[in-house]
């Protein structure tokens, strides 16, 4: 594992404009559906009555809720289409790292490492990749929530149509799923997600990556050290002695070679030495 640190890079691009746009639409529509929908569930509370009157009454709140819900589902499908488009453009190569936040065994190791760290069973913080297990959890939780809302929302909106094909108790089940999932989503987003991205001691009062698209070096080192090192190694043309995930995929597809592969990898062209690196650094200083 590379042990070098770099001083010249302060901010690292993390989210593209389209990704930030998707997130912006998501947070707006989710906030709207939550603030118009929760008063309908907790109708017996004073805050619910106040919020409902703020929207102009129950009927106006329902209209806003449905419009925001439609936009939320549209954002979901647009983002899914974007994923597929990007994956096809990259020919499905780098899905481990860049475009699909699929859980992998490394996440499991990290999670176990974090549990040990938090319970004082270990003093070493696990090194995380570009998307750590927290972010993958947040991502797939939202995915799950959008599916739940997208299916049950129309059921509650058009009960007359739904009951032509489904039994009537499906409406009741849809109501239970829709409202309970809303509680879960609001709790996860406004407690867990907000803590991780805004309210944590290192981020307070607000993280900025969601609208700038850039992550500062401190956060990169703190939260994505493995990815940070890989990025810097890549930028400085340094080949790490550890195979990248892309290499792992290529290795699986390539035919089995002789044991001389190990000896070939130990050639001078594939291994860098510290002295070489220091010389390069001096050259940059001259510039």
């Amino acid at each position, binding site marked *: 594992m590379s042990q070098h640190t770099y001083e010249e890079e302060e901010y690292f691009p993390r989210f593209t404009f389209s990704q930030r746009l998707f997130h912006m639409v998501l947070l707006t529509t989710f906030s709207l559906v939550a603030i118009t929908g929760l008063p*309908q569930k907790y109708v017996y509370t004073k805050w619910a009555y106040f919020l409902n009157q703020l929207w102009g009454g129950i009927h106006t709140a329902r209209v806003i809720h449905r419009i925001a819900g439609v936009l939320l589902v549209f954002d979901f499908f647009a983002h899914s289409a974007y994923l597929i488009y990007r994956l096809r453009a990259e020919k499905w190569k780098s899905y481990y790292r860049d475009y699909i936040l699929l859980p992998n065994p490394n996440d499991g190791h990290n999670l176990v490492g974090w549990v040990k760290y938090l319970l004082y069973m270990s*003093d070493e913080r696990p090194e995380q990749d570009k998307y750590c297990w927290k972010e993958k959890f947040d991502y797939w939780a939202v995915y799950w929530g959008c599916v739940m809302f997208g299916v049950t929302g129309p059921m509650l909106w058009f009960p007359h149509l739904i009951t*032509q094909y489904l039994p*009537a*108790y499906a409406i*009741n089940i849809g109501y239970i799923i829709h409202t309970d999932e809303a509680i879960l989503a609001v709790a*996860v987003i406004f*407690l867990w997600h907000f803590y991780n991205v805004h309210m944590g001691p290192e981020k307070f009062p607000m993280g900025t990556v969601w609208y700038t698209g850039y992550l500062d070096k401190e956060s990169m080192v703190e939260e994505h050290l493995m990815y940070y090192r890989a990025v810097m190694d890549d930028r400085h043309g340094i080949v790490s002695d550890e195979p990248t995930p892309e290499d792992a995929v290529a290795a699986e597809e390539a035919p089995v070679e002789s044991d001389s592969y190990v000896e070939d990898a130990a050639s001078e062209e594939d291994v860098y030495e510290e002295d070489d690196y220091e010389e390069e650094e001096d050259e940059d200083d001259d510039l």
Partner: protein
Amino acid sequence: MLYKTVLGLMFVACLVLARGVSAQVVDEANFTKDDCLKCHGYKEMGISRKNGSTKYFFVDPQLFDRSVHGNVSCKDCHQIRDIPHTPVTETTRVFCGRECHLVEPSQADTRTAFSHNAIYRTFKGSVHKRGEVYTGDFNEEDSGNGIPISPEDRNTDAPACKYCHINPLFNTRNDDGSRAMPEQDLLARCKACHPGPLLDDGTPSFRFANRFYMHVTHRLQRSTKRSPEGIVNLCGSCHADKELMAKHNVRTDIVDTYKKTFHWKAIRFGHKGTAHCLSCHVMPGHSVHDILPRKDKASSVYKSINPRTGDMNKDDNLHKVCGQDFCHPTLKMEEKNYELHRLNLHLKPSLSDPSTALEFVVEEIFYWLCTITVMQLCAWMLLELVRRFFPPKGH
């Protein structure tokens, strides 16, 4: 206290003597409202009961004149024949089914006296039928089928007329709270032909036009009736009493299950046009006094489904309730969406009930999913904060 009752009667006697009215039987033909107001017009008129409560007998003539019974004379309801009169007893109390001096307008040719007796008979045949005795002109105490009811069997828990009805004031406000057209402008054409009785100064009172206008608008505007929330609270005053309902073998969770529906939520948020108790439990076009048990085939909530095929039978009434013009008029019962009517608004999911077992399971799954997830995430955040403020040695 007894002495307070005696003092009250002595006070009344003094008033009578002061007014110069002799204590004798008054000729019914000369018996007027002013005679009653000679005593009942005093604001302090009342008695204190043994249980410590106070009942006032003061009648504000201006308020009463503005009420729906403003045209009715005192003696039409109260069986008073002499002044001062003896205390009201069980046999002389007001009976709402009594005939009054007013002529039923739809039967003016036969000079039929107006009465609420038809409503009373309808009410006696309803699910709320009451076995209390109303004596006087109406001395019938039966089950509605001519079979006498013994005192022990009388349902004294059932509501009487005054439990639901008051003597409301006329209110001509529109449903949105705004006042209707100024009465002077609205009634100008009516007053041109219907001057009504003359006042003392010889000018027309226009009383008929005013009262007819208020009589009609009072019943047309929803805002002048009891609000939907008021209706739910009124019905719930008994039906939410679990002990009372259990005593009469009636479901105890009716109000709780209704308040879980969107109908109640809309009412709670102030919407006026949403379904309340009477919207479903009164057959469209029928009197609200004609609420029947749900198993009665004439009941508005009588549900008849073929258990084998699940199709609606011809004698089903529930679809008529939901598909009313101002509720869900797009419902077409000949289509399969009658399935929607399988939604029993008053069902609580239970694992032992096959029709709601799946709902119960889904509810439990999401309940525990939410609870466990949120608790775990909160615990993780707490541990992170602790670890951050107590980092490993050397960091």
